[in-house]
């Protein structure tokens, strides 16, 4: 049974809730877009593939500075390493996967998070359109991206 929009929106809510918990509710949303031609990748990306109630993927992608701020908000204030960036991204993506899995259970299969920098090693197939929700924190940008394989809905 395909997920309803309100269920799909849960992904955005979970991501925002987690980031706002870290940042003290300082995440600002910008107006979303639908992209037909290209995917949006920033410096680091955490990707989840979806099967079952929704077919496609979600990913969170952020600049190194965005992750640096996140890292510094609950860790030491030193310069962030590439490993740190991947750890922060793994934490965000893992939290999304865990929380969504708790809500939808077996109706939605969620892959293990795939973390990469710049662009994916294995190309991601561009669906007909992707939903891009930009987020800003301390003037640094991140994007929540949803790519569904089809428009099927309940």
């Amino acid at each position, binding site marked *: 049974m395909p997920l309803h929009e*309100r269920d799909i929106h849960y992904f955005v809510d979970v991501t925002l809730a987690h980031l706002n918990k870290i940042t003290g509710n300082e995440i*600002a949303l910008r107006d979303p877009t639908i992209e037909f031609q290209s*995917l949006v990748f920033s410096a680091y990306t955490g990707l989840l593939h979806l099967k079952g109630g929704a077919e496609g993927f979600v990913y969170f992608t952020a600049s190194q500075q965005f992750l640096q701020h996140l890292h510094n908000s609950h860790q030491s204030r030193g310069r962030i390493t590439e490993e740190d960036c991947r750890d922060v991204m793994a934490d965000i993506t893992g939290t999304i996967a865990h929380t969504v899995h708790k809500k939808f259970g077996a109706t939605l299969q969620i892959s293990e998070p795939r973390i990469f920098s710049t662009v994916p090693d294995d190309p991601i197939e561009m669906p007909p359109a992707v939903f891009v929700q930009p987020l800003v924190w301390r003037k640094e940008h991140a994007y929540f991206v949803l790519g569904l394989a089809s428009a099927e809905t309940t």
Partner: protein
Amino acid sequence: MTGTEIYKRTPAYEREAREIRLHAPQWKLLLAFDGQRSLSEVALNAEVSFTEALPLTRKFLDQGWIEEQPITLDQYLKRMGARDVSATGAAVPPPTVLHQPEKETAPAPPSAPSPTPPPLPASPAAEKKDESSAAPEKAPAAKPSNRAMRLSAVVDFITSLVGNIGIGQLLVYRVFLRVPPELLLAEDIASVHLVGDTSLIQSEKLQKAIADAVNAVAKRQLPDSVFAPA
């Protein structure tokens, strides 16, 4: 009254509701005032034209059934598209595209800006909306005309079908998943901005594809107001 005012129903309305006698379209408008949406949005949602909505709103105000709902600075900025106070002085760049899949087939320069005003509904009142659970409307929504379709009006119409903006925007996304990307790219539309998109769609083929997608996904027919005046 400019259309940006936000009204909510009053305790006086709650007391008198059972005694009030109105025509069905007027009830539809009155019940649409929820303290969340602007007059323009309420009119669009109730499928009452703005010019019809104005005197009715005045009447509801005079009767004490609705009152203006003050909003906070944050709510105001959010409505205006700047979603936090700190953003008021800072321009935010669009999403950065760092990777483009090889399957792309057509160039997509940004859409041309348009001075068209926000959408105003002009269609007659219709049945109660129930998100996407109803059966598709029978009449195809395509508008065989040489009038341009305003993308912002299409987005606003679909979004207004759902009480929540975020969920409404995902409904817009689902609609556009059904629109062949090649038709959009042929019109130089590589992306749709879900707030204030300025694109005008001239291609009748694309207009029909969008109307069909709205009908299939949102189970609604596009109102005539999504088309620019001839």
